């Protein structure tokens, strides 16, 4: 047992933060994601179980993105308004992660707590053909997980799910308290 080993080690925080412009071939990511789906599938009996696993993995990614992106893109400043954080997700997050903005952001007509984020052709689904007997499976739940973690982690607790509708639609359902707080802010 030596203590010197610990003091000499350079930790990740000693290194400068990368600019985040590194690139990797899409093939690599596609094959990796395919292996991830297979891995999750081997551990699941049903489609919902598989989706839960992918969602959970997405959340692990999302949590890490929060600090990374807010420090790098926003000088450490977080959003406090609901609409702004949604726009952050639609623009900044999407652009940095996937190279372009999400296609559309809509507010639900029936439920003021619900927003829809639409994307015609999510990156993760590009090379996935869904088997007919599992037609409800949408592997973009992985991305839904990322979004959920980012929203929840920045103080806007929400549930985010992915659905087949006009391509893929992510349904963002905020906790009621979030919307109430936002209204309160606006009144001031």
């Amino acid at each position, binding site marked *: 047992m030596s203590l010197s080993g610990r003091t000499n*080690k350079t*930790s*990740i925080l000693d290194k400068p933060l*990368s600019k*985040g*412009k*590194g*690139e*990797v*071939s*899409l*093939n*690599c*990511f596609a*094959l*990796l*994601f395919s*292996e*991830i789906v*297979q*891995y999750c599938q081997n*551990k699941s009996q049903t489609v919902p179980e598989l989706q839960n*696993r992918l969602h*959970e*993995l*997405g959340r*692990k*990614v999302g949590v*890490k*993105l929060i600090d*990374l992106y807010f420090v790098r893109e926003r000088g450490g400043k977080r959003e406090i308004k609901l609409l702004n954080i949604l726009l952050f997700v639609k623009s900044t997050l999407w*652009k*940095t*992660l*996937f*190279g*372009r903005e999400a296609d559309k952001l809509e507010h639900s007509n029936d439920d003021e707590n619900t927003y829809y984020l639409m994307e015609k052709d999510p*990156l993760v689904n590009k090379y996935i053909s869904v088997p007919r007997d599992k037609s409800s499976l949408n592997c973009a739940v992985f991305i839904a997980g990322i979004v959920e973690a980012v929203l929840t982690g920045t103080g806007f607790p929400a549930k985010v799910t992915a659905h087949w509708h006009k391509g893929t639609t992510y349904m963002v359902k905020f906790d009621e308290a979030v919307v109430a707080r936002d209204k309160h802010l606006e009144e001031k």
Partner: protein
Amino acid sequence: MSRSSTRFDTKKVNSELVTLTYGALVAQMIKDLDNTDDVSKQLERLGYNMGVRLIEDFLAKTGTGRCLDLKDTADKIQTAFRMYLGVQPNVTNWSPAGDEFSFMLDNNPLTELVELPDDLKGLRYCNIICGVIRGALEMVQLDVQSWIVQDQLRGDTSTEVRVKFIRRLEDAMPAGED
């Protein structure tokens, strides 16, 4: 913020997406398997599956022919590193018999933002690369072994991926088909 390099048609993705996705997978595996060695093994197998399919893409894109010798193979794998991971490793440490060599990676998109906790120091985090190399070469009739010798995540200055040539595979029919 128009970065032409992140455009879709160039068929590239942000490396952090890959880094974090891979990290999430490894973390999940550690939770599921509970044994570092098993995780390392599983990562290698996962890489193998990827390699088996990746070689097709590599051959199609580069239009490369048969390798003349192992040096040639090493150069081509080096090209593949650049194509797929965007890094350029050095090929070094050839064994006297010329059947073993190493790739030295100074930086590696897989390990950016990654730190191994002390209780996981035995984990071969980059084993997936070894798997890819083994899988890809098997598809071109080369049986190799590949393993991690040095690892930046364990405090080494660079990551060293060792490749050892075992034998040339003869054209064998898949089992059950003669």
